[in-house]
């Protein structure tokens, strides 16, 4: 069965997500040999970045996120756009910091897998519920779509078909399944949680004890007493010549969901490029 990574990137006025996806692809190649990576985008990809990807795929059908800043309206299309039978989906603002090729063997046991526990940069389990208040208030499964896996087949297709409906009608579904602590914006994690709740398949699509997870760098997740607005303004980062990344003196070996674009300096991209 063909296996590969899919990254969806749509630039907005503030952030060059294609650049982030390029850095992610470089980091994947650096630590994981012979992996296939496809970029799904309608944006222009500079010629020198193209070699990091096996395929550059246009967003299927029309662009549902044309008017949106956060551009999550096309996420459900990844299932349809992926050229692989088994796909690991990563959000563009992530970096790979170690060899994760063994994940394929573990993920093969699932038709669909979402991360449901995430880590701090110190590798502590994130216990803060600050960003998950709507999930808790409405008893929704604690899923993270930033890193997930699907195997093409009926289970995943059914899930993504329903996800399309929920994303396109998010206000209606929120009013039924997420009316407590109501979020006034469409969030893909919340939509995924609603789909999971409707299908009642939480036990089949996640495992909170799984080693397949990522370090989530939103400041409230870090078990800090004094909260900065941005983690990048308070935490030292060091990238060794061999590509080892340290945040706050901790070697990062998990997938890093860095969230803040300013983290991704040209220096980091250069070092990743040289290590390919």
């Amino acid at each position: 069965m063909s296996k590969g990574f899919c990254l969806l990137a749509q630039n907005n006025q503030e952030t060059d997500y294609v650049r982030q996806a390029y850095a992610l692809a470089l980091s994947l190649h650096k630590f994981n040999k012979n992996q296939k990576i496809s970029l799904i985008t309608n944006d222009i990809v500079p010629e020198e970045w193209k070699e990091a990807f096996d395929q550059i795929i246009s967003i299927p059908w029309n662009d549902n996120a044309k008017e949106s800043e956060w551009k999550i309206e096309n996420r459900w299309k990844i299932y349809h756009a992926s050229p692989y039978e088994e796909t690991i989906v990563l959000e563009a603002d992530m970096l790979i910091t170690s060899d994760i090729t063994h994940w394929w063997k573990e993920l093969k046991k699932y038709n669909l897998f979402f991360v449901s526990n995430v880590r701090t940069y110190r590798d502590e389990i994130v216990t803060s519920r600050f960003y998950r208040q709507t999930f808790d208030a409405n008893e929704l499964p604690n899923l993270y779509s930033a890193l997930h896996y699907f195997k093409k087949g009926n289970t995943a297709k059914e899930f993504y078909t329903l996800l399309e409906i929920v994303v396109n009608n998010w206000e209606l579904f929120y009013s039924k399944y997420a009316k407590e602590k109501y979020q006034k914006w469409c969030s893909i994690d919340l939509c995924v949680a609603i789909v999971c709740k409707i299908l009642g398949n939480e036990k089949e699509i996640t495992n909170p004890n799984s080693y397949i997870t990522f370090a989530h760098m939103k400041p409230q997740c870090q078990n800090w007493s004094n909260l900065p607005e941005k983690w990048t303004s308070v935490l030292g980062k060091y990238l060794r010549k061999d590509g080892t990344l340290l945040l706050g003196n901790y070697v990062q070996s998990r997938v890093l969901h860095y969230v803040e674009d300013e983290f991704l300096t040209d220096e980091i991209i250069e070092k990743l490029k040289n290590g390919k």
Partner: protein
Amino acid sequence: MSKGVVLFAQNNHTIDYIKQAIFCAKKIKKHLQLPVALITDNEDYLEKTYPYYSKYIEHVISIPWKECKQKRTFQDGAMSNRNLEWRNHDRSTVYDLTPFEETLVMDTDFIIGNNLLANAFKTQDDFLIYKTVTDLNYKRPDAEKFNSISDRSVDMFWATVFYFKKTEKMKVFFDLVEHIKSNWLYYRLVYQIPEVTYRNDFSFSIAIHIFNGHQRNPWPGILPGKLWFTTDSDILIKMDNEDYTFLLDKRNWKGHYNVGSIKDANVHIMNKFSLDRAISEVLENE
């Protein structure tokens, strides 16, 4: 393999750590039945002031007196404090100075109240230390601040008491602690420590972190039992054998205290002044 306990005692102008060490050794004899070595920069004072010391201390190891520029505030309860020299720079030399192959090192204000730490000598581990502490004042709200050496930095380990075997690995470890101490200003910045004063807890924690490849690891092992502590804002008011009674600081009501007591426990008593007063009573009849 020879086994024993090492204590460091370096007096400043006000606090008599040597007196604390004799009391600490007395408790070690009672509960752990182990030989004690005292490392001090004032052997004369020991011999002249406490001629009976050899009942409790088998080895006295002299180190040169050095001028100390580091000061810190020592409180005697919430309402009284003094700014005094803090001589804590020699802990990293214990590898070379200990006369034992297996050594338990402890602060002189860490008072043994049971025999749990004797189990440290029964393990295969080369290094055991405490990672968590238990505040006797359960109402103190900020216990989690002790999880790491600063809000954003690495895990905290407590150099108050630790056990080590004399191995090559531990030699490298203590050399690393010495290196961190010698370059404290640099490491303080890199590890985001707001406090200026050098603390053994910090240098040990940083050395452990580096030794573990800048990651969390199960090394070193954890010492048996609990490390109870009271801060110098609390006041030890009664010591009856292994039964200690404290006035525990009500943090948001300055000068007011709750009464708390603990029995048969190993307690780090950070209020040196109240500890000194209690020890004076105990050592009166020596």
